[in-house]
């Protein structure tokens, strides 16, 4: 028998029920550990979309869509051997027959993993229904909240825990006046102590969110000024248009109860240290599992369980699940909150240090053991910069300094922060993916010198992202320790980064290279690294004509001659065809020019026409004719705005919802001539079908019924990267304002020759930070960025039209300054009806050049 068939027949069936974060991580781990050699894997998901990042769910309201929240490429679930059944709930488990039953039939299993997660607990309250009984867990829940918020002014969240505050943030980002109603006498009663709760309350109220503590909702009735009235004890009430319940979660153990697995005292499938349920063929992981009577509602312990089960099923030695650290660090409504270990000081003999700053509503508590040598726990409100150090003290049982209080005193008091060097190799840096300092070091020893690469290799910081700061510190410390100094000097002439030079040019109003070199550089000449970089900075800032005598020597040949040099020293010419829209007359004019100068003609990727094979001395004549026909330069030669690709949009297309061509023309006209650290490509699609492929561009715009969705930092080319959804349903003016700010912020902060995609990946704080800067103007730069862009826009002039006016500038467009002949070494042959450069192998009749010794 064929060996492949034999192997196939030997395969067992493994079923995973649930495709949340933990279920997904388990599948990833199974693949990585070679499970597909032993099992056919079926994954059943009740939800209609594949696993997404629930930790960042609230970003669904600030611009991210289901796809960008997804935890993996769709390709993962197309791996042969894996079948993902989306929107197919499992109805029943028949343990006797080893079958799971769905509406579509039954599937037999050999092993089964329950990763069914949890569901929101909604207390039974009279009158709670429809928009007064919303919950916050799935994308569908969020769609319901969004729909309810459409005509609402005020929204209330019942529950002041971690998720409740997240939900309040979501309501706030939907533009509602948000209130939080909590049964306990303080916020986040599980993680915070009394003072911590008070500090958090003060901070949140400052943000305009109403906080109502010690309130139990007894009933919900119709309101007078809003849709509903929530009735509390003592005749108190609060009116609102919608209510979201976030009063805790319950393990989703319905299937386990149905098939009579052992259930824990607080719900959940009882598991042992190997995550096995009372049926040895059934495992349970994540929020649906009960270990030692405890449930774990965080992603890190769920991932630990997933890894353990994956190892067991792949016949590897699993790390037993021994409970988990429930420490957590969050930004809730923009307020830092951290809770580590025994935050309440419940351990017998525990002693506390507290720091209270009432003026800033900041609070820190450090809990140490009876001997005063070890950290047991901590509470942080208002400033999480203390978190990483405290967590490492606790997790690694590092001996406390003489004055433990110094660990929570303001940093100016000279607190001994625990340097990354002090961490043992076994210290966990990323608890989501269980990445230790040791594994980071070995990645670095393996040649990794780039933070983004480190993240993708080790997966560190790709879960909740909470370890970003620590990871960077460890990374930089270890690099330095290995003598790898990251010299960020531009070149030997400037001991500055591109960003620093940009700031100097801006602040000091420098307009020539010589001036900058004299003030901040060394030598008299510069080089082929700093000259084009400074030339680009000067152009981005002041947009002087690129052919001005002081700028000419700075440019690479393409910018100098405003054309693209090809391999044989001839140039290609690309007139601007904005948005890819062109009249018949202009098309004919291009044809006439191409024919006259015998130029090879090709439609380029950006919806315009490239004309190849022009010699230097021909460029002015060619451009005179193109400009006469109404064309202007396309800047194909510059690190600058290239094209705005567009689909035909609502004027012709039966699906289009906006006029994408008109928007493309507006954008291309605005940013043409903008010089930047690297080329810039744009696209505008007229509907969600996305025919213009906007999600592969630096700036992508996709029409919606209500306006435009803006995507940024996409890239085709060598390392493709999908653009990320940045803002939704923008009107024209807001769209342009965001693009203005985005582009100028990129120009200001990017490294030389850095595309927006790489820049975005290197941005500390990521997309959120970018949104803060651009949308919420967190740096107060908005006006400045816009006015800088306006200067560039208003100074726009077609460089070719400008050059043609000046005999001095045209002086250089001569193949030989003392002879009219063309370059005699340029030869063409004909192929498919056009000219192309002759190849070396076709040059056999031409004598070899004399070489000198």
């Amino acid at each position: 028998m064929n060996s492949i068939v034999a192997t196939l027949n030997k395969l067992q069936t493994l079923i995973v029920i649930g495709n949340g974060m933990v279920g997904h991580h388990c599948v990833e781990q199974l693949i990585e550990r070679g499970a597909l050699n032993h099992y056919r894997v079926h994954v059943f998901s009740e939800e209609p979309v594949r696993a997404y990042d629930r930790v960042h769910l609230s970003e669904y309201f600030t611009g991210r869509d289901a796809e960008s929240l997804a935890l993996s490429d769709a390709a993962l679930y197309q791996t042969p051997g894996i079948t993902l059944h989306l929107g197919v709930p499992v109805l029943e488990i028949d343990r006797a027959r080893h079958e799971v039953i769905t509406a579509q039939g039954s599937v037999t299993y050999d092993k089964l993993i329950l990763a069914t997660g949890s569901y929101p607990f909604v207390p039974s309250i009279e009158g709670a229904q429809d928009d007064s009984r919303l919950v916050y867990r799935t994308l569908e829940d969020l769609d319901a909240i969004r729909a309810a918020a459409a005509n609402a002014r005020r929204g209330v969240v019942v529950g002041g825990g971690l998720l409740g505050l997240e939900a309040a943030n979501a309501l706030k980002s939907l533009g509602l006046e948000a209130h939080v109603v909590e049964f306990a006498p303080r916020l986040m009663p599980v993680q915070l102590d009394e003072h911590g709760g008070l500090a958090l309350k003060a901070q949140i109220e400052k943000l305009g969110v109403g906080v109502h503590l010690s309130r139990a909702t007894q009933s919900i009735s119709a309101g007078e000024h809003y849709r509903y009235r929530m009735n509390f004890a003592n005749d108190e009430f609060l009116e609102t248009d919608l209510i979201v319940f976030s009063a805790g979660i319950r393990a989703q153990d319905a299937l386990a109860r149905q098939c009579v697995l052992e259930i824990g005292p607080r719900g959940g499938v009882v598991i042992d240290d190997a995550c096995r349920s009372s049926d040895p063929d059934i495992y349970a992981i994540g929020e649906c599992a009960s270990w030692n009577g405890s449930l774990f509602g965080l992603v890190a312990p769920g991932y630990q369980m997933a890894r353990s089960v994956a190892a067991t099923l792949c016949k590897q030695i699993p790390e037993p699940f021994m409970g988990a650290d429930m420490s957590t660090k969050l930004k809730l409504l923009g307020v830092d909150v951290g809770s580590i270990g025994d935050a309440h000081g419940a351990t017998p003999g525990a002693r506390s240090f507290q720091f209270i700053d009432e003026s800033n509503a900041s609070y820190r508590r450090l809990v140490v053991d009876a001997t005063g040598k070890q950290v047991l726990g901590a509470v942080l409100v208002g400033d999480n910069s203390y978190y990483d150090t405290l967590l490492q003290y606790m997790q690694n049982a590092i001996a406390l300094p003489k004055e433990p209080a110094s660990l929570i005193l303001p940093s100016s008091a000279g607190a001994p922060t625990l340097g990354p060097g002090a961490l043992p190799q076994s210290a966990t840096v990323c608890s989501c993916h269980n990445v230790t300092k040791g594994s980071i070091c070995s990645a670095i020893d393996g040649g990794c010198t780039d933070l983004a690469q480190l993240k993708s290799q080790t997966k560190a910081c790709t879960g909740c992202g909470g370890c970003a700061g620590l990871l960077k510190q460890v990374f930089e410390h270890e690099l330095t320790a290995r003598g790898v100094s990251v010299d960020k000097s531009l070149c030997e002439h400037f001991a500055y980064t591109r960003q620093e030079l940009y700031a100097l040019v801006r602040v000091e109003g420098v307009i020539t290279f010589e001036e900058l070199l004299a003030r901040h550089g060394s030598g008299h000449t510069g080089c082929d690294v700093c000259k084009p970089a400074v030339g680009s900075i000067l152009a981005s800032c002041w947009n002087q004509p690129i052919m001005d005598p002081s700028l000419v020597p700075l440019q690479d040949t393409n910018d100098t001659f405003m054309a693209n040099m090809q391999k044989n020293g001839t140039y290609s010419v690309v007139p601007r065809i904005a948005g890819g829209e062109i009249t018949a007359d202009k098309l004919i004019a291009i044809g006439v020019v191409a024919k006259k100068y015998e130029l090879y003609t090709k439609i380029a990727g950006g919806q315009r026409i490239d004309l190849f094979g022009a010699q230097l001395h021909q460029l002015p004549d060619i451009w005179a004719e193109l400009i006469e026909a109404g064309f202007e330069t396309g800047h194909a030669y510059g690190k600058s705005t290239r094209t705005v690709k567009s689909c035909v949009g609502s004027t012709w297309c039966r699906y289009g919802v906006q006029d994408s061509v008109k928007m493309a023309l507006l954008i291309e006209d605005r940013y043409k001539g903008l010089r930047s650290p690297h080329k810039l490509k744009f696209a505008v699609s007229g509907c969600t079908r996305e025919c213009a492929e906007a999600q592969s561009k630096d700036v992508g715009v996709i029409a919606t019924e209500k306006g435009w969705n803006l995507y940024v930092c996409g890239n085709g080319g060598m390392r493709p990267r999908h653009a990320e959804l940045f803002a939704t349903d923008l009107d024209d003016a807001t769209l342009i304002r965001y693009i203005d700010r985005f582009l100028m912020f990129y120009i200001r902060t990017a490294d030389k020759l850095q595309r927006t995609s790489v820049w975005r990946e290197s941005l500390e704080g990521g997309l959120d930070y970018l949104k803060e800067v651009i949308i919420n103007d967190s740096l107060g730069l908005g006006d400045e960025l816009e006015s800088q862009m306006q200067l560039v826009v208003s100074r726009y002039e077609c460089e070719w039209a400008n050059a043609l006016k000046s005999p001095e500038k045209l002086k250089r467009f001569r193949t030989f300054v003392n002879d009219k002949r063309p370059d005699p070494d340029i030869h063409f042959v004909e192929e498919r009806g056009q000219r192309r450069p002759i190849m070396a192998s076709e040059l056999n009749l031409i004598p070899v050049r004399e070489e000198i010794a």
Partner: protein
Amino acid sequence: MNPLNTLRTHDTLASEQDAVWQSVCSEQDLVINSGVVVWLDGAQVALFYLPDAQGKTLYAIDNHDPKSGANVIGRGLIADIKGELVVASPIYKQHFRLEDGTCLEYPQQRLRVWPVRLSRGDVEIGCRARG
């Protein structure tokens, strides 16, 4: 005449005393801090004019880039690398010393250089004495 059959006949001169100075263009034809190209009896010579440089301000170097096979050196960018003036080929970016034509990256790719001077507003290139 078939230009393809033109052979280069100008070797580097042993010394400028042997030179016959030939006027190739005027000072006005030069572009400051950048290059232009002249035709010299079948050879293509790139002229770089650096009026602010300390020491020599005018250089003549072969326009032919041996790596790409194209005549493009005159359109390259001038750079100062560790104190030496070089020109970067615009196609594959390798650097040639203006002083003697040596390539920094590939020493076997050496470009021919010529003595060159400004004389009463004319640019003159030193060619080998005949005979």
